[in-house]
């Protein structure tokens, strides 16, 4: 009896920190329409700052709480800096650029935290005066947990007062409903945006700080809490603070009881809960249906044209060059180009989903890693021959995409993106935790191709054939009726439904196809490296794919290949530095701010007109002229 009650209370205590972080994310998104990926990093910074401030000023009972508030303030300052230096310049840019930029911030914060606080997990300081335990029906319960239980509702009440009783709060709510209208009424928008961003950051920081005595501070907190926050926002209902509170409580309770009942399956339980709620209430517990249907816009509006003669020649030359590469370059470079080919297929599959489908997935690595693990598990446990395993990799990834996509396509825009990330994190955790099957963090080793394909040159040519074949297949699908139907759902939901297109089915099929193609890339990957680790399914890997698409430019079909090459080069250059994440993060932020069209996009913009890279681009301009009324 006591055990269950204590577990229940302990769940409520964990819910507070989660609620603070999730409500901050919700407020920032509501006002600025930016999904702040760095929100998990702010939470982590809150914990680290809290640790330091408690040491410096946290002597007494008052000092401790002052230190936590100082930590929240410090994170608020970091938020201010991020908003002021980066996001402010990107509010009008396509959402993808904002997301990539905040991902750059994640990388920067990770290495900054590593530099300042070191790689060791930090044990949280105990709260003075609250270090004791109370016994509830004989089961011990930390006093601090009881205090934490009160913090969540307290902040909820404070936020309610702020949003219903103050002018600023009402403006924030108004901006959440209709930004343009608020702007038209003469409200200083940039001040409002900055304010909302700082408030949201502080809430994340406070969340990280108050959980210190319970959970301490470590460098892996950011992604863990990020996925949980997304689940909370999606389950709680879009933009509902109260819903976020309910969802945080529900998920934390599920976690604490899950540990009691099924220790290794807590994430699976979370998955099931999320799935059930989304099936019963697609808008979340307290969410209302989206009025306008806010869509994630990736900056693709112009018509795609099939390849023109010049472009075909260009592609032919590139292929010939790649085919001849084994005769020209050393094996070291062949390995590197193999990486590029694998990543190009991976990025192209994501690009297909994003540009043709308008579906931005933040968890695409689930299928890349899924394909890799499918092949690796088949080889390890069923002694499957290399050829068959490579063939089954996309099938495994496609099945995973079918399960995940079945839930995700119920949502649209940014909520779709959040859900894909949350599911991908669940998939990663399953692989990470289920070490009996997957060897966990030690990975699966010795996954090599058959003898005939094991030479670097032969495998390179095989990878070239499969990757190029896959990319051509994707291109073919873009211009097939299926691709057109998908594009129709992206362009106008209303019209698509009115001409009998089953939007969800079209999107799900696209999701599965893209997942299968990513899985094929994953299969190629695992046999080229001989091993696979959970990293291949992780959030950073999903972001690698987004980054490649971004580097290549979203509106260019050949972009992903350019992006993969640029990414591989960048990664290879930076990995030699100790703080390579910091450099990569800074590079990403700089690229986003300097080249909002992506590298290939920028290059094409300047060269395309002269080279006629796409059929009909000249014709289009001509028609536009003719179409002008005389």
């Amino acid at each position, binding site marked *: 009896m006591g055990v269950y009650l204590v577990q229940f209370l302990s769940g409520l205590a964990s819910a507070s920190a989660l609620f603070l972080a999730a409500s901050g994310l919700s407020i920032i998104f509501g006002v600025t329409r930016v999904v702040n990926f760095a929100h998990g990093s702010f939470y982590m910074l809150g914990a680290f700052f809290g640790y330091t401030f408690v040491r410096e000023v946290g002597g007494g009972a008052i000092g401790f709480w002052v230190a936590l508030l100082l930590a929240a303030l410090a994170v608020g300052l970091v938020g201010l800096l991020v908003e002021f230096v980066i996001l402010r310049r990107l509010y009008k840019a396509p959402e993808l650029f904002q997301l990539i930029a905040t991902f750059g911030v994640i990388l920067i914060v990770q290495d900054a935290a590593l530099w300042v606080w070191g790689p060791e997990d930090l044990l949280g300081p105990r709260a003075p005066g609250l270090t004791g335990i109370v016994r509830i029906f004989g089961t011990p319960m930390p006093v601090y947990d009881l205090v934490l239980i009160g913090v969540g509702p307290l902040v909820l009440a404070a936020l309610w007062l702020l949003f219903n009783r103050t002018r600023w709060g009402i403006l924030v709510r108004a901006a959440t409903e209709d930004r343009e209208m608020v702007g038209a009424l003469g409200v200083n928008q940039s001040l409002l945006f900055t304010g909302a961003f700082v408030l949201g950051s502080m809430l994340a920081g406070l969340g990280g700080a108050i959980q210190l005595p319970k959970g301490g501070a470590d460098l892996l907190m950011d992604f863990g809490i990020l996925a949980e926050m997304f689940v909370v926002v999606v389950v709680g209902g879009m933009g509902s603070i109260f819903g976020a509170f309910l969802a945080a409580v529900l998920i934390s309770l599920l976690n604490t009881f899950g540990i009691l009942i099924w220790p290794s399956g807590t994430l699976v339980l979370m998955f099931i809960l999320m799935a059930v709620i989304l099936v019963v209430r697609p808008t979340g517990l307290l969410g209302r249906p989206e009025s306008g249907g806010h869509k994630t816009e990736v900056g693709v*509006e112009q018509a795609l044209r099939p390849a023109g003669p010049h472009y075909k020649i260009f592609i032919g030359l590139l292929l010939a060059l790649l085919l001849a590469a084994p005769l020209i370059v050393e094996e070291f470079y062949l390995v590197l180009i193999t990486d590029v080919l694998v990543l190009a297929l991976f990025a192209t599959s994501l690009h297909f989903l994003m540009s043709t489908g308008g579906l931005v997935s933040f968890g695409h690595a689930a299928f890349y890693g899924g394909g890799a693990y499918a092949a690796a598990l088949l080889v390890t446990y069923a002694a499957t021959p290399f050829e068959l395993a490579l063939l089954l990799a996309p099938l495994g990834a496609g099945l995973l995409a079918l399960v995940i996509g079945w839930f995700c396509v119920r949502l649209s825009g940014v909520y779709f993106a959040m859900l894909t990330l949350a599911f991908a994190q669940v998939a990663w955790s399953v692989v990470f935790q289920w070490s009996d099957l997957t060897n966990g963090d030690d990975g699966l080793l010795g996954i090599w191709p058959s003898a005939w394909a094991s030479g670097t040159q032969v495998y390179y040519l095989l990878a070239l054939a499969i990757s190029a074949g896959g990319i051509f297949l994707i291109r073919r*699908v873009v*211009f097939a009726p*299926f691709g*057109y139907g998908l594009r129709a759902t992206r*362009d106008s939901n209303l*019209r698509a439904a*009115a001409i*009998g297109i089953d939007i969800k089915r079209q999107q799900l099929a696209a999701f599965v196809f893209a997942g299968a193609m990513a899985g094929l890339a994953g299969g190629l990957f695992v046999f080229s490296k001989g091993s696979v680790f959970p990293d291949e399914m992780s959030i950073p890997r999903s972001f690698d794919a987004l980054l490649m698409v971004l580097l290549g430019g979203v509106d260019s079909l050949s972009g992903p290949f350019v992006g993969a090459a640029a990414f591989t080069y960048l990664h290879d250059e930076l990995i030699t530095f100790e703080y390579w994440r910091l450099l990569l993060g800074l590079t990403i932020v700089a690229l986003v701010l300097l080249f909002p069209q992506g590298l290939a996009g920028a290059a094409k913009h300047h060269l395309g007109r002269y080279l006629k890279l796409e059929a009909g681009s000249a014709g289009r301009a001509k028609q536009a002229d003719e*179409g002008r009324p005389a």
Partner: protein
Amino acid sequence: MSDTATARAAEQPSLSIRNLSKAFGGVQAVNDVSFDLAKGELLALIGPNGAGKSTCFNMLNGQIRADSGSVRLAGEELIGRSPADIWRRGVGRTFQITATFPSMTVAENVAMVLMSQRRELFSLFRTAVHRHRDKALALLDLVGMAAQADRPCGVLSYGDLKRVELAVALGNEPRVLLMDEPTAGMAPRERIELMGLAARLVSDLGLSVLFTEHDMDIVFGHAGRIIVLSRGALIAEGTAQEIRSNPLVLKTYLGEGQIYGRAEG
């Protein structure tokens, strides 16, 4: 089959609406509305702003689910079916604010319908470029847009978009066409052309058209029959002549403009 049965089949309305109701919260947007859309007729649905015209339309094509009532297409119940399903059964529609695919050309917009109708949208390997182009061009010719077939829809003027929408709506050879304010935002001459086209479609193809409209010249000039909604309820039904002289309509709808010191409805 007896002669009376054949006659009844011929008389059976295309669309039969009975006791249709819908409330949004406390607002009764549409209240117990019943009317028939006869085969081959051009029926206008009018009423002041907020009378429930668009709600009515959205219930007919399944975009909003009715609280109660029935909508039958040649005897088949439509309430509870999805917009896609209703479209497949032969109810096409155009929107008050046009909805097209801006990244596709005009011809491709029409070809999309043809692909959807033929259930080709899961075909992965055939090419969709120039697919059904001849049929699409024929439809565009019908609405006078063939010359602009290869322009992206995203750059068209509003009036042209309306005409593309009409071609799109005709794509699956519907039995019933719903047009929500078909001429809103068009120049006077364009309006007359478009309504003339709609009238031709009715007479040539035997289409049944239900449209809403604010421009009374258009309504009285083109509609074969008119029904009037006010505050969600149907208050009058008849020919242009009858509606013009209906005292209730004059009082609640047309009359408002004639009273000095009152804003026009």
